């Protein structure tokens, strides 16, 4: 059995192939985050609007998404979307899955942002006699979103780590490339370790940066 020893030459030789996976992983994270933030805002607006039947239905859906495993959601989308006549690529399916799953968490974060806004903002808006729509769109939501930016950043970091699940629906992201190398060369040590190390370095550094951002915001506030 080969594999007891770490082979630097082999490790270097697979970096270009892994780099292709990194590109896919990064794009999936970026697109998935954008979708999660937009959908999360939509859920928040539906929540605030309190529309009869619509709000409960949407809210049940959001709780459903939160309460079930992302892996199965991905499988479901992967196998069911085509039967609905939506011929989307595995990559697009993965982005939709990630975006949908994390939108449930984004909605909670937006809610926290609205809740933490000082009462004076509401009072001032009422005093100015602004229409309700403008109060939300011009005063409340922009401030709430800005206040929770570091928390939204945490969603991006979580999603980045979860993109590894896309390998199960045939998306050739980082982990899939690592596994493919392992299966063709029978060497798993280097590819899987490099993959893990990459996830670690990126998410550790981002988490630290976000923590710094949060403390800076706290000091400013």
């Amino acid at each position: 059995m080969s594999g007891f020893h770490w082979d630097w030459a082999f490790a270097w030789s697979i970096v270009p192939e892994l780099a292709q996976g990194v590109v896919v992983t990064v794009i999936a994270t970026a697109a998935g985050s954008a979708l999660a933030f937009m959908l999360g805002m939509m859920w928040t607006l539906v929540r605030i609007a309190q529309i009869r039947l619509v709000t409960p239905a949407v809210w049940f859906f959001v709780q459903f998404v939160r309460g079930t495993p992302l892996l199965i959601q991905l499988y479901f989308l992967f196998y069911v979307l085509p039967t609905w006549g939506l011929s989307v690529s595995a990559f697009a399916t993965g982005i939709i899955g990630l975006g949908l799953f994390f939108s449930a968490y984004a909605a909670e974060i937006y809610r926290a942002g609205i809740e933490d806004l000082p009462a004076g903002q509401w009072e001032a808006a009422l005093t100015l006699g602004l229409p309700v729509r403008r109060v939300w769109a011009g005063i409340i939501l922009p401030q709430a979103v800005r206040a929770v930016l570091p928390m939204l950043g945490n969603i991006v970091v979580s999603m980045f780590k979860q993109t590894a699940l896309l390998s199960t629906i045939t998306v050739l992201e980082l982990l899939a490339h690592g596994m493919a190398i392992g299966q063709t060369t029978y060497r798993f040590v280097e590819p899987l370790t490099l993959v893990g190390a990459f996830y670690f370095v990126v998410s550790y550094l981002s988490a630290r940066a976000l923590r710094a951002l949060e403390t800076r915001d706290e000091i400013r506030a």
Partner: protein
Amino acid sequence: MTSPKSLWEFLPFFLGGVPVTLEVTFLAMAVAVPVAIILAIGRKSPRAFVRWPAGFVIEFFRGSSALVQLFWAFYVLPLFGLTLPPLVCGVLVLGLNEGSYMSEVVRAGLDAVPKGQREAAVALGLPARYRLFRIVLPQALPLMVPPFGNELITMLKFTALVSLVTIQDLSFRASLIGDTLGHNGPIFALTIAVYFVLALSLGVLVRMLERAAARRAGRHVTEATVPHGALITPALPSSIPAWALGGGG
């Protein structure tokens, strides 16, 4: 098209995954809770040789993808001569991963114990170990029950990953049945529904535990902490004044 009859035939095999999924959930949680407590206490240690490794373990497991850790334990550890059975592999990785996240919960729980308790224990000349196990932890643990309960449901969702290392849980059986039928949609729809029902059931269990813990801690449980119909009625931030809410639409 799949005839519903053929899916029906596989139903007993599929539902046989429920106990497996629950087993992995509870075993992994049984690993995660002590790991979280040990890591949180370790991180607060005045000794650097305890604090640093605890911090390293936390950052290591939180830092990279759980699936990669699982594959690493499954494919790479055997090359170092350490072959773990899939169940042990899955339970350990999930437990250590989730335990690292939960150490934050434990830290918050420990911090929530009033400082005076510790100071009083010091003033009474109680040894450090006694202070921790008899004074601080008994007061902190009931505080951790609600967040731990939420983590139990997170863990349930998390266990779907172990299907990828050959453990025959719900997800594994669903994939197998889907491949056999040649039609994966219905079985995965059913699988999502089963996970959701399991999550709701665990939620009920957790709430019962919460009440018991609150009673133990001598606190009154108000009905408001257990909102009914939360599944379809979103809680609105209390700070929003009534005039700013649309109502009706």
